[in-house]
């Protein structure tokens, strides 16, 4: 088992993208608007990939992901703004506390299946949001002022680490156990897999990175308010995963980039924005009912093309 060629190609590609953006920013070829958009894309990729491990890999339908993002956002904001700790400590704390929140929510709710689990996670996310809404220490409904600290470097590293950890997890015996649970929970159990344990593990890893994404989000917009983490945000993340293709990591990344870009450009048309956005969603689901990528990854697509080419 050696690292595949695809891994090094991806890593090289990622570093090139990072360097190009970094150089262009330094030379003021990318203005603040686009910098902000790139960071937003990175945050959304992290959210999509962290939900992908719960829904796409383990098959547990959680629709409360914004709750863990909220935990990360508020914890990091408290660290940097109230306690005066460095940003990086805030990010780590955000991940840790969100993971603990994931554990506390996951242990009772992952006993449920399908629709019931979805409702339970939605409920937990709302509880988290309303808790922040009622804590005066973090500003309540008015929100909390946060300094802008998220840079392209933080956002890029966040994405890189998220994807690396989750794809490494997936391509191991642990990830395969999660896939087995998605495919057939009874058979997975009969094959010696502790299904409850792996469901919780996937949920905790997903929550951890949602928390980190929340920390980056909080320090990108000058202010965080509980309404930013309502169920619409959870659905937005869910849409990235479903539209990208359940079970495909590259699919959720592509969907996050695509939809974030569409949504940013549509801000020029505030009246029709949500209508056009919805039409785009409907069109994609009509023509790609299993999502943009199905269950395939990018490297499968390239491999198929190559083989097809040589035969022709």
């Amino acid at each position, binding site marked *: *088992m050696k690292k595949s060629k695809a891994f090094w190609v991806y890593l090289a590609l990622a570093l090139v993208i990072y360097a190009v953006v970094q150089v262009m920013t330094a030379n003021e070829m990318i203005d603040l608007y686009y910098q902000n958009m790139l960071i937003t894309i990175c945050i959304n990729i992290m959210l999509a990939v962290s939900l992908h491990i719960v829904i796409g890999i383990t098959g547990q339908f959680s629709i409360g992901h914004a709750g863990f993002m909220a935990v990360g956002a508020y914890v990091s904001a408290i660290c940097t703004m109230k306690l005066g700790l460095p940003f990086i400590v805030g990010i780590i704390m955000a991940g840790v506390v969100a993971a603990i929140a994931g554990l506390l929510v996951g242990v009772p709710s992952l006993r449920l299946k399908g629709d019931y689990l979805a409702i339970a996670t939605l409920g937990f996310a709302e509880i988290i949001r309303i808790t922040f809404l009622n804590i005066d220490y973090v500003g309540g409904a008015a929100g909390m002022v946060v300094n802008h600290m998220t840079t392209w470097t933080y956002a890029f590293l966040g994405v890189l680490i998220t994807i690396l950890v989750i794809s*490494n997890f997936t391509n*191991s015996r*642990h990830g395969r156990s999660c896939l087995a649970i998605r495919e057939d929970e009874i058979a997975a159990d009969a*094959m010696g*897999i502790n*299904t409850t344990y792996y469901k919780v593990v996937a949920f905790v890893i997903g929550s951890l990175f949602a928390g980190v994404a929340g920390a980056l989000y909080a320090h990108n917009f000058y202010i965080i308010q509980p309404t930013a983490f309502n169920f619409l945000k959870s659905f937005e993340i869910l849409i990235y995963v479903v539209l990208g293709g359940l079970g495909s990591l590259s699919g959720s990344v592509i969907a996050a980039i695509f939809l974030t870009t569409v949504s940013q450009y549509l801000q020029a048309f505030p009246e029709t924005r949500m209508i056009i956005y919805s039409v785009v969603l409907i069109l994609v689901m009509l023509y790609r009912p299993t999502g943009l990528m199905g269950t395939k990854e990018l490297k499968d697509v390239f491999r198929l093309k190559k083989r097809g080419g040589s035969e022709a």
Partner: protein
Amino acid sequence: MSNPLVKLENVGIQFGGLKAVQNVNMYINKGELVGLIGPNGAGKTTTFNMLTGVYTPTEGDITFEGKSIKGLKPYQVTKRGISRTFQNIRLFKDLTVLDNVKIANHHLAKHSILSSVLRLPSHFKGEGKMEKESIEFLKIFGLDVYKDELAKNLPYGMQRRLEIARALAAGPKLLLLDEPAAGMNPQETQDLMDLIALIRKEFDLTILLIEHDMSLVMGICERIYVLDHGQLIAEGTPEEIRNNPKVIEAYLGEEVKN
């Protein structure tokens, strides 16, 4: 009687008011190949489900290697050394044939989540070993040529074989086969019988088999238990079972008097 590998003592289970299985006393010695037969709805699969931890018996006790396994969860039972196949094939359909077997091999590997995430040497060592062992299992079943196919794309007979390969990869001492020949033609059934005999010798297995195909049961089982309406009605060698009036009655109905 020396210590049997597995022993069921007065085992019974009740679903609401329905007594699905009651007063079952069974034992299987190490190395035996035992058949469990009975008409539809007799409680054969329910007995399997109690043995594997899917159901917890409401009465009696089940011991495996001298220790009670009553109340253990299915994955814990598998770790103790009992694995099974399913009557209705339950493969991981959208995963490859190789991954199906690797998943069963999972609980025998040691490398931790952290080592996999950080790609430490123990991860590569553990995964390499899993890969090698899984391919060995596939070879025994003639499935190694299909290793990168999705399980759902295999022909039916091959899916049945893959189920057994997967159960074997979980490293059992006792293998439970739930109607392994269901839906197979006579040639496939014959091949399957040979295969069961082969893996039994190769892996020093004890096997309990549910089957409707009488030629298969009578052909390879050393001892047979017969269940009817949730109760054991007979036990013995294939010859004894064939001539047992109770068994004939259960299968064919009562003889018409006068």
